[in-house]
């Protein structure tokens, strides 16, 4: 598989959020603001990159009978490491994301890539796949968070855009807004981007 295709798959054709609908728990829960979406996306990308790399390196060493527990141990190690590093160096984001950082362990995107890609492909391809899928996930979260923040609080990345006169639609930053925005954005993604690529 050539690298260009892997990148395109991760970001557009098999976008983890808009096409595969993986990892919906963090996608819906932390995208109240663009900043949180970006933070969650980057944390997930870091875990995905780490786990894909290590699993691709170890694939001949891990017997297939115990591959799932082995993958989980590798993923959990990266998640815990990243949680500790974030708590030490970017505490504001760590506090904002809260419980969703440890929950990256159970993000099915990460185990999914380990099982379907990293355990079957070369290390280089797995690194590229981890980065692309992570980037696709991050982009989706930033767009979703940005849209929700814009309509729900009148700002993007915490910068006031719409001013005091704008009646903030509180529902957009609450759970129902997450479903609404995700549905509408997925429709838009299908119409605008997928049509063009096919």
């Amino acid at each position, binding site marked *: 598989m050539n690298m260009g295709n892997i990148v395109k798959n991760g970001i557009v054709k098999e976008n983890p959020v808009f096409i595969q609908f993986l990892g919906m728990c963090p996608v819906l829960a932390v995208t109240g*603001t663009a900043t949180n979406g970006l933070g969650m996306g980057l944390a997930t990308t870091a875990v995905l990159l780490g786990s894909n790399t290590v699993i691709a390196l170890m694939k001949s060493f891990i017997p297939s*009978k115990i591959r799932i527990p082995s993958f989980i141990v590798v993923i959990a190690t990266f998640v815990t490491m990243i949680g*500790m590093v974030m708590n030490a*160096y970017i505490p504001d984001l760590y506090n*904002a994301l809260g419980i969703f950082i440890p929950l990256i362990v159970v993000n099915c995107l990460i185990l999914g890539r380990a099982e379907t890609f990293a355990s079957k492909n070369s290390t280089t391809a797995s690194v590229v796949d981890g980065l692309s899928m992570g980037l696709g996930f991050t982009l989706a979260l930033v767009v979703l968070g940005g849209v929700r923040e814009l309509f729900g609080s009148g700002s993007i990345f915490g910068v006031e855009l719409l001013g005091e006169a704008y009646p903030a639609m509180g529902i957009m930053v609450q759970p129902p807004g997450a479903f609404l925005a995700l549905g509408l954005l997925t429709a838009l993604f299908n119409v605008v981007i997928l049509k063009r690529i096919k």
Partner: protein
Amino acid sequence: MREIIKLGFILLAITSVAGLILGGVNSMTADIIEERALEESMEAIEAFFPESDGAGFVDDADVLDYDLVDEVYEVRQGDNVIGYTIKTVPNGYDGPIEILTGITIDGEITGVEILSQTETPGLGDRITTDDFKEQFIGQSSDSEVDVDVLSGATVSSNAVVNGVNAAINVFEEELRN
């Protein structure tokens, strides 16, 4: 049988390496995390008591056993205790909220600071705005505090009020002379 043992050893090897790595990262970050938390508390204490020149932990089990109370600092100016800063952790709408409350030795609230919270963005997280926090300043510890709750964020507002009331309670019952 042989295979099971072999698989067990492979898993043991993987988890041992993972454990070692995590131990290493933990020992690198634990101090920074603790130091930063302390620094945040100290900054808040300085804001509550600009005239203070030092603060220290109150390490008294009777005091720390109170409901919601997590840490208590004694704020000093020279040799005199001029007030206390009490960290309480009530439950908000979406998880615990860490609150610092500054109370002078005469029983006046000098400030409330939210150290960490996970309330709903745009609604509950407005408890961190100055407009909300400043309402507490100047109130007396003789009775429970009285503030306007934020519309749409009653649970979050009340959680902060509960935290401050818990601080007042321990101050009145244990710390005030």
